[in-house]
């Protein structure tokens, strides 16, 4: 086969993407820009002037940021530990860590309801121990959403971080220590900067996942809503596909902005990364 025909191997994939991703995307975005046949950004102005929508957007961003930060905070030490394990043990532990991804989010959310409810495990233990008197309201609050989402997305950040941390040459750490750096300094100056790429990829996955998650916020959230459930209401129960498409476009743009900002931050942190 001559080399110049090689690109044909891409054809099926490209055709598939064009038909089932690019065209629908253009249709979705396009449908929001025309009203009564004329081109307008009107629908977006309406959304951004609307304090109700901004409130939902605020809750969504807050939940997504909190989920991402918690995932990093919990995930980084675990990933570091895993990257130090011998391969066989690491495989088993990693498989266990990924387990939450294998159960359906409905099942997972119902389990959290049993744990977080007023008659649930957490409240029962706290009351029996005499720490609290009246059960805490956790279920049906943004806190419950964050707990559910952290559980859901922790594996994503673990997988990406373990990969990156493994590839760090530990001779570098040893070299730093032999040159007089403390363990903490060596970790701060070598391990963290070198893990930034994994941290960025993992954070983006978690952030975008939390931003667009539907099932977990719908089941664990209460009166405070997120953009995804608002979109569902517009599309499915009100049949207002234009509003739903506009919301989807807004979510897409936010995702791009966040990815851009994170990449910029990463470049600052680790110019050579």
């Amino acid at each position, binding site marked *: 086969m001559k080399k110049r025909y090689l690109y044909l191997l891409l*054809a099926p994939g490209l055709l598939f993407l064009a038909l089932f991703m690019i065209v629908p995307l253009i249709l979705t975005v396009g449908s929001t820009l025309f009203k009564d046949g004329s081109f307008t950004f009107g629908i977006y102005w309406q959304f951004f002037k609307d304090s109700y929508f901004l409130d939902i957007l605020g809750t969504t961003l807050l939940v997504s940021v909190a989920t991402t930060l918690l995932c990093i905070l919990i995930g980084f030490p675990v990933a570091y530990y895993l990257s130090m394990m011998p391969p066989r043990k690491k495989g088993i532990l990693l498989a266990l860590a990924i387990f939450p991804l294998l159960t359906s989010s409905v099942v997972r959310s119902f389990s959290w309801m049993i744990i977080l*409810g007023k008659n649930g495990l957490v409240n029962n233990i706290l009351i029996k121990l005499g720490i609290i008197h009246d059960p805490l309201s956790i*279920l049906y609050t943004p806190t419950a959403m964050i707990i559910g989402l952290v559980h859901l997305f922790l594996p994503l950040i673990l997988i990406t971080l373990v990969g990156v941390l493994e590839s760090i040459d530990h001779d570098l750490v040893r070299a730093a220590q032999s040159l007089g750096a403390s363990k903490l300094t060596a970790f701060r100056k070598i391990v963290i900067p070198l893990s930034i790429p994994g941290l960025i990829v993992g954070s983006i996955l978690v952030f975008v996942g939390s931003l667009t998650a539907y099932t977990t916020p719908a089941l664990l959230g209460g*009166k405070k809503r997120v953009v995804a459930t608002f979109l569902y209401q517009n599309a499915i*129960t009100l049949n*207002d596909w234009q509003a739903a498409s506009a919301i989807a476009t807004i979510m897409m743009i936010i995702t791009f902005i966040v990815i851009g900002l994170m990449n910029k931050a990463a470049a600052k942190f680790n110019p050579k990364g």
Partner: protein
Amino acid sequence: MKKPWIKGLMTCTLAALVLAGCGNGGSEDSSAGGSSGGQKKLVVSTWGFAEDFYSKEVYAPFEKEHNVKIVLETGNNADRLSKILQGSSDVDVVYLSDYYAQQGIEAGAFEKIDRSRLSNLDALYDIAKAPNGEDYGPAYTIGQLGIAYDQKAAGTTVSSWADLWKPELKGKVTMPSITSTSGPMMVDAASKVAGSTEFNEDKAFAKLAELNPSVVKYYSQTSEFINMFTQGEAAAGPIMQMYLGDLKKADPNVEFVTPSEGAYAIINTLNVVKGSKNKELAEDFINWQLSQEVQEKAAKAKVDSPANRNVSLSAEEAAAVTYGSSVVEKLQKLDMAFVNKNLKSWTDRFNREVTK
């Protein structure tokens, strides 16, 4: 040299075939009718709950009598209706709640029904005969929306819609979300609780906003309602009588009350989809679903409350079933055309003024 092309094409065709297959995912066994020796096929779109009961007592006898194969499409009201509206289905008969049926009617998605072909129509309660107007399908079940509550957990008694506003129930009430079947009914109830005899939208929303601090969560699925009682998150809320059995399993102290201002009728209808090639067969199917035989079995199995007046049940069989003319004739029915016209603005007001 041409091989990559061929391979590419084959891959694409294969992908397209797979996707086409996925698109049809809702309808089970969709090719069964076409090939098997001229046997007709009737596509029925329904929720898919109590499927064992339906396939044994409703579909199987009908298939046998009319030598037809019934093919199911299942899903919730909204999904199934939007599929029909997009024209990507070959559904003949569709089960829908009266609200979604009204949406379908206004979009011109249903055939006008030939009432002379429905011999069981006269046996129905008046409220069931033409819930969406004379041209369209009848109701096959009439349920009652009242209040379920756990007196011990609530710390008070509830006997009316107004009682949901009691201060003792703060943080213990669950209400239906505005876009669920019973959401608009609560707008109507709130208007009554606010003291207006004629429906008053402003008063209704002000009253609902007053209730908001008492509400734990606005539910959109019955499973959420039941779960809130299991978890002790809620102690009172509006729900259909039919779910009392499931609810009692979650919380044995739960009781159902018909509010003194009047319960609401939850109406599920049957319609023939526009362009059906089996209109007469579809009408026969509707008539069969309305028959005393099916209605009585469904009530006894606690699957559907009857719409047929001739159904007779013992006291035990009638538990958790909305039954008897004294109950059914008192139910209040919302004008679905009115609800349909207002739901978009009500949802907006509900979002902004009530749940803010």
